[in-house]
């Protein structure tokens, strides 16, 4: 497999004022194939979200080599887009204006923006809500907007930082189905961070288990379940076997 994104020996230490330094990532290695759906599970604070922010270009690692499509990563760019756990919608912007944010920052005219945002809003099932403000939407609707906003600039890579963690269990299940549907048509490379093993298996081609801080890759599981996947797959023996294996790797890293 040709790696589309590769990270080698990535090291990162936070130096917060008035406190001791925190090693977030230590010799972290990762390879993600083009069009692949890779999930990272790991204990809280292991640096998995930090790595997403590094890929996004918001944080510079202390050392290490990160390449995307063979080129070294340099700062933020519209070839990557993040879906945030807390949605990150601008409260003073309507659904449509939020979806169009990235296009606006690129300097696109309002007519062209509309041509892009209209089909996306339709795809996420929010037609008729274009003029609504975020506070008028449910959590699931807000994250649909977050997803549409990330897709609007047509990035190659979607970074998802526990995107469904703030949603209730049923909404979460529906959003997972929705995400798979969109991923299958949009053909994006997805790096998905989550705490939930079941979610990781259901969505991914591969699942990476990370160690506790300072985080590095502990083990990678290939998920050979057929696609398209349906909800019933979650109760098959193969699914549960994977769930158990991943849990066995993960539980040693978790301190309560």
């Amino acid at each position, binding site marked *: 497999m040709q790696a589309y994104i590769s990270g080698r020996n990535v090291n990162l230490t936070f130096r917060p004022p008035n406190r001791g330094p925190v090693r977030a990532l230590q010799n972290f290695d990762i390879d993600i194939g083009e069009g692949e759906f890779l999930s990272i599970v790991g204990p809280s604070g292991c640096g998995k979200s930090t790595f997403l922010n590094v890929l996004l270009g918001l944080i510079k690692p202390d050392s290490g080599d990160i390449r995307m499509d063979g080129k070294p990563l340099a700062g933020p760019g519209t070839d990557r887009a993040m879906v945030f756990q807390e949605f990150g919608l*601008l409260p003073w912007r309507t659904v449509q204006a939020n979806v169009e944010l990235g296009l606006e920052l690129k300097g696109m005219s309002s007519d062209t923006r509309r041509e892009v945002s209209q089909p996306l809003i339709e795809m996420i099932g929010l037609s008729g809500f274009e003029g609504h403000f975020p506070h008028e939407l449910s959590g699931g609707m807000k994250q649909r907007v977050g997803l549409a906003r990330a897709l609007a600039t047509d990035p190659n890579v979607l970074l998802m930082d526990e995107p469904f963690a703030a949603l209730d269990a049923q909404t979460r299940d529906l959003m997972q189905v929705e995400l798979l549907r969109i991923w299958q048509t949009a053909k994006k490379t997805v790096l998905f961070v989550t705490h939930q093993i079941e979610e990781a298996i259901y969505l991914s081609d591969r699942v990476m288990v990370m160690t506790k801080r300072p985080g590095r890759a502990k083990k990678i599981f290939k998920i050979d379940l057929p696609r398209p996947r349906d909800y019933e797959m979650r109760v098959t023996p193969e699914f549960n076997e994977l769930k158990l294996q991943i849990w066995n790797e993960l539980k040693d890293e978790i301190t309560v």
Partner: protein
Amino acid sequence: MSDEAIPRQSFTDKHRKVLLGGLAVAIFLAAWQAVFLVVPFNKLFVSKPDLIWDALVDLIVSGDLMRDLAISAVPFVYGFSAAVVVGVALGIVMGWRERVSYALDPIMTIFYASPLVALAPLVIVFFGVGVSGKAIIIFVLSVFPFIFNAQAGVRAVDRLLINVVRSMGGTERDLYLKVIVPSVLPYIVAGARIAVGRGLIGILVGEFFAASEGIGYAIARFGDLFALDRMFACIFAIMVIAVVLTEGIRWAERAAFPWRVGQ
């Protein structure tokens, strides 16, 4: 008729809030008027609503009230505008730069908490009884709500939203225009509501101490002349202006920031 039929709301149910509020005002005025049926009335020491109303009509018809208000409005506009500009700029810097806020927080807090009207005689000595002296008193009283609210607004800017715009390739200018300004504006408008009240105190105090014209001077002069009906008429005019300004800002706030309604 089905059982689920929604009972129709009567007129009094629907407008309960306005009716009860209006009723309280009416009872207050009626009680004020009625108390002099029992208590002997001396117009040198007290006044009552019907006399005040007559005096108000007189002052409006003669044009005196409008003249005094117009005179007082000039320093108010100068002082208040300066307070907006200086207060917002200083508050934003204090919110953004930690060291500036460490340095200035104590002194600003002391000034905000103290009864600065006590400095009014001094200001008059320095700047005279004209427009500039009054404007400075108004500025000093109304600048602090802008400082503290702008500072709080900047501190409340959501880091996540900054990261969202930065991650999409937004420049420093984009951060200001698309995140910081929209976050801070509602705080500044809320500060303006407080500042209006303090600014009106400023104009009255300034004109009490030393002035030869203006609404504050009119109140003080009518008081000295024992023309209490006219004095109360002027106070009533100031009250109406204060309510109109603060409620006007509240209304503008709802119209301009619809996303705040749900927060």
